[in-house]
């Protein structure tokens, strides 16, 4: 057993912090795209468009049923061999695409459950004033479903941030990739990976605090 090289660890912190923006960028863009895609998938699962339903179910089944790492490899190393227009795809884009598709499958199920959880009377009130189905979804049902699904969706965002670490396998130098390079130079693997672990942990805990505030905000209409 040897002592931890604390000086090395402290020196590593600002180096890895420099890659936090890229990690957050990938997670944030993927989250926004996944939210939009998941909402569309969830609405389809609720209203069941004939001819589209089986496709949506297949999509959700595939992206929930295969590992994220396998999906990333499929996009980055596999697909460009078949689809030539993807030959120029870079690691960051591939990672964002993979995270989007993977997490939208999970989030679609969470949003679908939340939509079903919106009280029947809310749907009927929207119908009674002559709203079209699209207006009803956008103005009444989805906002209320969003509140129900919010804690679960924040959890998926947290998973997504951690999931960006897999982008280093596509050659992206993000937090994990940068740490890997540093460790390979210093051979201080324990110190290096401990630092990156703590930094991920701090990011996630900060988000957990944000989640509490988000829930307070979303619940303002329901407070007695």
């Amino acid at each position, binding site marked *: 057993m040897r002592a931890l090289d604390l000086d090395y660890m402290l020196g590593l912190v600002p180096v890895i912090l420099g890659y936090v923006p890229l990690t957050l960028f990938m997670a944030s863009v993927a989250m926004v795209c996944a939210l939009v895609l998941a909402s569309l998938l969830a609405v389809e699962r609720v209203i069941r468009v004939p001819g589209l339903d089986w496709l949506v179910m297949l999509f959700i089944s595939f992206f929930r049923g295969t590992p994220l790492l396998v999906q990333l490899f499929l996009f980055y190393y596999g697909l460009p061999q078949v689809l030539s227009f993807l030959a120029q795809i870079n690691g960051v884009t591939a990672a964002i695409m993979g995270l989007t598709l993977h997490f939208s499958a999970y989030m679609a199920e969470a949003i679908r459950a939340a939509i079903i959880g919106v009280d029947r009377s809310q749907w009927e009130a929207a119908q009674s*004033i002559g709203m079209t189905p699209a207006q009803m979804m956008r*103005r009444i049902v989805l906002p209320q479903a969003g509140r129900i699904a919010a804690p679960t969706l924040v959890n998926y965002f947290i998973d997504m941030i951690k999931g960006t670490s897999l982008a280093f396998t596509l050659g992206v130098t993000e937090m994990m990739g940068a740490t890997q390079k540093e460790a390979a130079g210093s051979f201080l693997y324990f110190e290096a990976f401990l630092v990156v672990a703590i930094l991920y942990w701090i990011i996630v805990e900060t988000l957990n605090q944000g989640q509490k505030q988000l829930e307070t905000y979303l619940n303002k209409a329901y407070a*007695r």
Partner: protein
Amino acid sequence: MISIRGLTKRFGGTTVLDAIDLDIADGERVVVIGSSGTGKSTLLRCVNFLDRPDAGTIAVGDVVVDAERASKRDMLALRRATAFVFQNYALFANKTAKENIMEALVTVQRRPKDEAERRALAVLAETGLAEKADSYPSALSGGQQQRVGIGRAMAIGADLMLFDEPTSALDPEWVGEVLDLMRRVAEQRQTMLIVTHEMQFAREIADRVVFMDGGRIVEAGPPDQVLDTPKDERLRRFLRRVA
């Protein structure tokens, strides 16, 4: 003028509405009475297409809808010509009292937001809830929620207002204020079709009382005639029970 012809609704093998014919003149107040499960609420819900009727026609103003051939556009047109007040209020939980009233004006009628807001505030003042404009439904009492629910229906300016047992879910202490508001709506010569168990209110407000049993209209006429000199035995039994 509202004209309902042969309106029929079946749930599974049960006929809940059996070829109902009903005409309502402009400004007329019609109260529907009857025991539970006789099709009163289904009648209202079919007129608004919340439940899709199996047969019959509904004409509200210029909108004529044949149940068997109704397109989505027909359905929307009919819903926009009518306004519905629910037993359980059904205010939009994610919107304030004011926004609940504005919603139909802005989203459905495509009116400018400031105009809709002025209209909503005016309606809220009429319901006596001006100071609750920015309150969410969860912060309102049952009576207040139902008054907003009535306000939401008033603001639409519909040809026909449908009230589905508007006081049945209320604590007794809130019933009076809701009935008071409905009286004020009636004074404006709004055409109303009301399902209620409040017999005294029916007598006072109705131009015509309709008694339903087994999915049919059994007896109809002015309130004193129907309530004081009932002809049908089923109506007599019903009135004895609720008296």
